[in-house]
């Protein structure tokens, strides 16, 4: 860790080193898991690298793994903001006539306007699960292998696949209770298909 801190002190060297050690991997991850295009991915990687070099001295890292986790979290923040921005880039204001006979969430427009209530609902459902179940679902969303997850949740690897499948099905069923309406550009109220 001392060696890393020494490298980080020299900005040019730090940027090159961070890029080689972590930048490419972060790009590959964002492309593979979140389907980010290459230009946007590089932009996020550069932002992360520069930010890390700028702020690393404010933190203390026990070891290189913690430092890597720090970089990863910073990248996740930028990625999250980017995805939010992308989802709402073409958003416009549309008035939604609320049907008072149905207590439904309504969406302003496509993109995150629809995803937000579903995301909130998913979060609520995840909170109801046990810790290991939540970890399993979220780690698999990041394409972490079952063998690795098994070490964290202390369950046999072979059983995790079954658990994962059952949990996903259960979530799908619960999410289907959520009706989402939106208003098209012509002003027609339409139903959005439920979560698949």
């Amino acid at each position: 860790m001392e060696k890393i801190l020494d490298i980080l002190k020299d900005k040019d060297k730090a940027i090159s080193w961070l890029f080689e050690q972590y930048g490419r991997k972060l790009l590959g991850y964002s492309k593979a898991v979140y389907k980010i295009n290459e230009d946007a991915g590089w932009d996020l990687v550069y932002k992360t690298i520069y930010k890390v070099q700028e702020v690393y001295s404010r933190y203390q890292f026990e070891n290189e793994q913690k430092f890597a986790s720090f970089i990863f979290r910073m990248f996740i923040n930028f990625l999250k903001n980017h995805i939010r921005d992308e989802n709402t880039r073409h958003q416009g204001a549309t008035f939604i006539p609320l049907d008072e006979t149905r207590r439904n969430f309504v969406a302003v427009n496509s993109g995150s306007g629809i995803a937000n209530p579903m995301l909130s609902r998913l979060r609520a459902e995840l909170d109801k699960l046990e810790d290991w179940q939540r970890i399993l679902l979220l780690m698999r969303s990041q394409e972490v292998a079952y063998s690795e997850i098994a070490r964290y949740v202390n369950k046999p690897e072979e059983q995790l696949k079954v658990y994962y499948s059952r949990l996903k099905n259960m979530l799908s069923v619960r999410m289907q209770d959520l009706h989402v309406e939106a208003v098209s550009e012509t002003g027609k109220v339409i139903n959005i298909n439920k979560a698949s």
Partner: protein
Amino acid sequence: MEGSGPSIDELLRQSFLELDQASPANDQLFDAASQHVFSQNWTSGKVHVSASKRTAFYRLPWVWGLSSALIFSGIATLIYLLQFNTEEGDKISTATNQNKINNVSSSSNTNSNLKTNDYEQTTESKSANDYFTGTYVENKKIKSGTVKFTKSELKNGIQINLNSSLSDSAAHGSLLLSESDNKETVLSAKKIVISDEVQKRTFVKQEREKLAAKITTEITQRLPLIPGAQGPYNDKTFQVPFYMWPTEVTVGEYNVFLLDLLLQGREDEYETARPHLDGSFGTLLSEHDKDFFERYLTGKEFSDYPIVFISPEGANLYCKWMQEVISASAEASRSIIVRLPNKGEWERAAAGGRPHIEYGTFSGTIKSGILHHRFEANFKETQQNDFDFLLGQHSETVTNGHIKTHKGELNTFTTKAGIYPANPYMLYDMAGNVSEMVVDRKGHFSVKGGNWNSSSEFLRIRDNDFTEFPLGIIPCPFIGFRPVININ
């Protein structure tokens, strides 16, 4: 919009991003995920700089920085060595040495290390970051060749006066290059490398022409003309008709203005006009908020959002600049004045020809619909329940910025200019979004219309009994402006 919604997998991936990083319960998840990510053999990517980034002037120097670090360090060294083995290298060496010998510090320079010389770039060829290729004046003699600046010169700053007397096509003005300012704000426009000079001037010229054309079109076809009257709202004075800009001035529009100031060498005006995150309000911001605002004020994704953090003097300078832009394209016989509105003008424009109306919105109210759940303005609703789906709140997903109120509540921010329906005069956001500056005859500034953080009483057209800004009109995230135009 019809079609399948996001899958569970997509939602789970998004949920992962939204996890609270500060919560110890999620530490294990992030540590495991990071270990996984950095141990995998993802597709390797090359260092890639797209053409759009080279011309994206509002993008921060991410690409420049990394390209310089990775490519320039190798190639520049090679070129440097080669040049010093050639005749050209002798010229460079001579020019550099002569420049050092003839180092003239202008008394107007704040930095005594600055070097002053006259340069004209006559070619559009790309140069490396610390070269200048073209014609230059040295010791009152015109020379041509390549001048190379040393790292310490770049670091300490170089003042380059581009002298119009050298040729008709020469650029004029002065620029200050500084490597010490690493802030990723529009100030990074100051880190203009010489090879970019022509490109930037061309860009700004085009943007000015576009803006002039837009203004001319707006004036002749679409710009709302507020009719003259004898104090129809609260004002008893007679007022002539005037045109009003349909939306609050946006980040994109304001940044063109700032860049033009820099390239014209109007640095004092730039310093006054630029957004001030470092002012008194800025001391109240957290690092997270500052990062967000820096992104907001310079990011392309916020170019259609209202400009904030500017001073009344900055707003006046924008009006003056807009007047120059319009006048340059207008008929010589027409007199054009661009300025901030006065209170009476603003109120009359907001009323939209409706006497005794309360708010300057489409319907005259800020919430409409059967259940009063259609919001016609971006402001802070003080109570929430299950049915409160605030159009104003969708700005949270748009901006991703949060400012906590004094009660610690998360609040939202501005929305894109013009997304709520216009009032009868086709003016947008005359209630909410950002409070708009107005000026009285004595030159005193105040604000009208309320903003994204205002409660509803501040959105009213008429004045309240107490001001929303007791400390005065300072650069802050609540205040913007829109100009009015008189054409005679």
